[in-house]
């Protein structure tokens, strides 16, 4: 069997999410030399080789991101790959917007099932693939079996790590020209730069979170000040965006952004489980809340019992004094 992994680029580098997907995909390959990367723009082959990739298929002739066309090219590669015996192939992608979208198109084109946001996969025998996948954005796990001539899986990237292979692959590049129809190219992305907000929330080292306890749209000044002093950004709970106090782009949670900072300072957030789906990737959580029994307070690493409007101004002063005292 061959495990094909759709690899996304972040600038010129392999996207971190795709390194995690490659690590997951490598675990599915039964024998060495079965891991192939599929890219739609020139990728650093050495970095792919370090993750055990033996073959890199560089698809040419598709300009930009056209999900259905990408899926069509993947389907050509998978259907033309040699299939020794009954062994099924697998196609893996990161569980990103692009990864889920391209694989869903591939699933629809090829009439195959697809499992989104897998966290584990194993072969109990040659014909079966057992998987564990996320439901409820990771609050629940589903154990399932995939019985299909090719397994289409996306990977819940925050749940798996990116580990280079013990045995690097050659990462030999093969150019293939994408055979796509006009209909496959109808939906094609035109890209323009976005403001920094959404991206920085996802990648910030420090996130200062505000919830219902902030009280109003005007109550965020101390959170913003602490965020600035700690070199971080402000994120908010769903209540805050539903009330219209802050835009949805600042929301942390199941239907907002998943964050992975070193520190999440959650202020006045009670901690609905949908919120944990967005912040459980934080290395450290400190909660400030008037209610010591709030889930956010009991599931945090550290808790301060009190009103954020009293604690944060005092924290701002202490952080300033600390800088001045040096």
């Amino acid at each position, binding site marked *: 069997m061959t495990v094909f992994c759709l690899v996304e680029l972040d600038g010129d580098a392999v996207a971190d999410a795709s390194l995690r997907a490659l690590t997951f995909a490598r675990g599915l390959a039964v024998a060495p030399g079965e891991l192939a990367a599929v890219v739609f723009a020139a990728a650093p082959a050495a970095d792919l080789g370090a993750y055990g990739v033996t073959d890199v298929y560089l698809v040419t002739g598709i300009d930009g991101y056209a999900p259905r066309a990408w899926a069509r090219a993947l389907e050509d590669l998978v259907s033309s790959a040699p299939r020794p015996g009954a062994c099924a192939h697998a196609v893996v992608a990161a569980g*990103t917007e692009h990864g889920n*979208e391209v694989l869903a198109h591939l699933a*629809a084109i090829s*009439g195959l099932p697809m499992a989104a946001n897998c966290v584990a996969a194993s072969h109990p025998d040659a014909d079966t693939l057992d998987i564990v996948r996320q439901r409820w954005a990771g609050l629940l796990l589903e154990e399932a079996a995939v019985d299909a001539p090719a397994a289409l899986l996306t990977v819940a990237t925050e749940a798996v790590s990116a580990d280079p292979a013990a045995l690097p692959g050659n990462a030999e590049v093969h150019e293939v020209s994408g055979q796509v129809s006009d209909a496959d190219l109808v939906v094609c992305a035109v890209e*323009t730069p976005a403001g920094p907000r959404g991206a920085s929330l996802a990648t910030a080292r420090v996130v200062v979170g505000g919830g219902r306890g902030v009280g109003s749209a005007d109550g965020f000044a101390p959170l913003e000040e602490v965020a600035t002093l700690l070199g971080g950004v402000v994120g908010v709970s769903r209540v805050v965006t539903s009330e219209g106090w802050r835009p949805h782009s600042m929301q942390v949670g199941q*239907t*907002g952004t998943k964050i992975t900072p070193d520190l999440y300072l959650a202020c006045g957030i009670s901690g609905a489980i949908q919120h944990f789906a967005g912040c459980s990737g934080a290395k450290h959580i400190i909660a400030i809340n008037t209610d010591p029994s709030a889930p956010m307070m*009991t599931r*945090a690493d550290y808790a301060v019992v009190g009103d954020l409007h009293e*604690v944060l101004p005092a924290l701002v002063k202490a952080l300033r004094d600390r800088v001045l005292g040096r």
Partner: protein
Amino acid sequence: MEILVCVKRVPTVGGAITLTADRRAIDTKASGFTISPHEECAVEEAVRLVERFGGSVTVVSLGPVEAEEQLRSCLALGASAAVLVETAPGAETGPIATAAALHSVAVTGAYDLVLLGNEASDTGDYQVGIRLAHLLGRPVATGIKAISVSGDGSSLSASRTYRGVVETFTLPLPCVVTVKEGINLPRYPSLPGRLRAKRATITRVPVETAAPTAVSDVRMLRLRVPDAPKKQATVLGRGAGAVPALVEVLAEIGVIS
């Protein structure tokens, strides 16, 4: 503009998820039900488009008879017709069969636009909208946070942000779009809306006739609640008096020097 919006009845999950004894479903004895936040926004977006361009909004749901409750909430928000593709109690329908069932309803009307949430908040399959679009032979865009319809009504542009870049897709109508929370701020139902919804007739279609599919979905064996990290938070103190301890922790973590 004729718009079809697909919604799904899901349990309202607040504190913790508990499973049934056979571990094949969430125990919903004590929970309320709702639709996904993404879908609330899909309904709102449809109502806004119809307010602007005329036409009507139909909502469809695949689910048990109780899903009429969610369809009525959508009617209260401004949808004018509702279809329930009725499943057996307790039955879970996978994404392939769901798309087929929705397709059987979508082909019965001349819909310019089919809207869905980007993913259902419960199963999170991330594929129903795309499968439906392929069955309908229509273009599709997913994860959309802004829609604008062209002046002549022949196309729409749909955009989202991905890796710090705004991606804009232009789709000829008819088409399928899946949206995400944040595309709008849904309204609250009006009193006349709620009264109208209470009286409205909901068309019921049995699922058996609606969705014969050849390919089978991923086969769910059982569900499992992941182990929550059993940690006891260290209480640093009360009010502003906790700040010195808080600053020490910040230094220990390494976010201040």
